[in-house]
Structures are given as structure tokens and as C-alpha cells.
């Protein structure tokens, strides 16, 4: 339940709060939900991406990188209770 709550706060933070807080929340949640950074990246680009500024959807790319790293870390934590 707490994971869901923090995921929701990360979404709200993308709209309301400064981006450093959003990054911090997303990275924290990514320890338990590796897909959240990618989801937040896509959501941020949905809100703020403009083709005139740049071709690449940077938030999505950063989110993807964070998600891959989170998956990698989780795979290394074999005895961890994080995944349970």
C-alpha cells in the first residue's frame, strides 16, 4: 500500500512540486517498483515535452535508464526481501 501511495505522490509531484523532489521520490520508489521511473518519465514528457526544444524525449530516456539500473540492482539482491 505504501508503494502505491509513494507512486501516486511521485505522479502528483511531477505536476506540482519542483523536479528535484520528483527525482528523489522516483528513485526512492524505484527500489521497490523498478518501473516507476519509466512511468514518471513518460508522464513528465507527456506534460512538458515540446518538439521545438529537442527531438529526444529526455525524461522518458532518463526514466528508462533509472528503471534498467533499478532492475539490475534488484537482480543482484538475491537474498533481499525487497521483492517480496
Amino acid at each position, binding site marked *: 500500500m505504501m508503494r502505491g501511495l509513494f*507512486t501516486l505522490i511521485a*505522479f502528483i509531484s511531477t505536476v*506540482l512540486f519542483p523536479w528535484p523532489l520528483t527525482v528523489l521520490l522516483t528513485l526512492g520508489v524505484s527500489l521497490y*517498483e523498478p*518501473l516507476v521511473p519509466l*512511468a514518471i518519465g*513518460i508522464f513528465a514528457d507527456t506534460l512538458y515535452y515540446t518538439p521545438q526544444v529537442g527531438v529526444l524525449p529526455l525524461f522518458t530516456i532518463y526514466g528508462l535508464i533509472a528503471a534498467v539500473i533499478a532492475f539490475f540492482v534488484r537482480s543482484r539482491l538475491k537474498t533481499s526481501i525487497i521483492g517480496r
Partner: protein
Amino acid sequence: MKRNALLSSANLSWGTLALALAVLFLLVRLLAPNFFWYAFTPALRAGDALAQMSHTFLSSFDNAATLALQNEKLSQENAALTIENEALLEKTNSVSQLGANSQGITAGVVARPPESPYDTLVVAAGSEGGVTLGEEAFGEGNVPLGTVTSLLAHISRITLFSAPGASLLGWVGPTHVPLIIKGGGAGTLSASVPRSAGVTVNDVVSVPGPGSLPIATVVRIDSDPSSPSVTLRIQPSLNLFSVTWVVLRDTGITLQNAFSTTTTPTKP
């Protein structure tokens, strides 16, 4: 009813749901942009307002730091001014005590020749300031300059010793040879002494005050072989027309007036 293992609730994590939600928002933006912006505009405006508030809040800390620096600087300046003020106050007290010891009235010169008649000074102190007729005016270095000859409430006129017709008793030389100093006008003085007195150029001429006060020096001696006396040309120690401040002081004129009043014979 068939159950799909991939879509079972046991396999759905919050991350998956979040990803699905994000993709849903992306699709809405791509397929129905008007509706998307209509729905999200209030949220984005709220985000802007919140960002503005947080910026203002954080800026207040910057202002507080600036104010603290300014406060510290002003405190230092205030301390410096306080010290300076105390020093000036002490100086003022010292000057006041000095003035009290000299028992005189310090007055600024309002007019000097050629604004005033030659060999007179007009000073800014009068009867309301305690000045009386006959008081002597002293310049820098306690050099006698003249006497108060006219008096108003706030203004006095001083006739210098160099005025034509003015005369005063004095001495000349190291042996204090008595002589009568006469005003020659335009700031010059002269006196006549016996040739045998041995007066030389640069001898100091002094007048009685409290003791003997140097007033001038002999700059030239005019002698006539047929005369038993010589004429001394005397130059005042101060340039009488460049004096800016004078001290007015009673040198006994009140006492002399009292004596003259009590010794005047009365008619039977």
C-alpha cells in the same frame, strides 16, 4: 471464465499500474490533446502557483541574509559614530573650559575693512552677550587688537589700536622702555622715544594686559639729527585686517570707570 496469467492481480505491481497510467495519459495527449490540456490546465496552474510561492519563500531567506549583513554594517557604523561623537563632546567640553578660563567672549568678525570703516572691526557679539564698552579685543595668540567703542544688542564695533588718533601706553625693547603708541591708520602704528633709549629694529612692542602682551615689532626707525627723539614705525604682529575671530575681555575698564566715578569732584 478464462483467467489470463499475465493479467492476474497477483502479477500486477504498482509500477506496472503506474506505467499503464502514464501510457494512458500519453495516448490521451496524442489522441485528444484539447481534452488533455483542458483537464490538466488547473493542475499545471496550481503547480506554477506553488513554485512561485516556494520561490518567494526561499527568496525571503536571501533577503534576510542581506538584511543581516546590512544590519551588521550599520551597527559598526553606529559604533564608530558613537565613538566619534564622544570624542567631539570631550573636545567641546575642553574648549568650553578653556573659554571659561580665559574669561572672555569669543566673537566672530562680521565685517573688516574695507567693508567696515578703516581700522575698525564689527563682531557678532553685543550687550546681550555680555560685552561692555571699553573691553579689549584680543586676536590669535592673545594679541591685543583694539577696544570696543560701540555696542548694540548683538553687534559690537571695535576700534583698532591702529586707528588714527588712537593711543595707548606700552613698552618697547628688552628693557621695557615706556612709550605712547599712536595709531597711524591703515593698520600702522608709530611711537616716539628718546634717541638715547637705544631702540633697534625688530624690538618687540608690548602693552599692559595681564602682564606684558607683545603687540607689534619695530620695523623702521626714522631719526632726525636735529631732534633728540626718534620715530618708531611699528608693524602689528597680526594682520589686523585678516582677523576672523576675536576674544573680548575686560582688562580693567570697569574698575577704571568705577574709580573715575568715585573720584569725580562734586560741586558744592
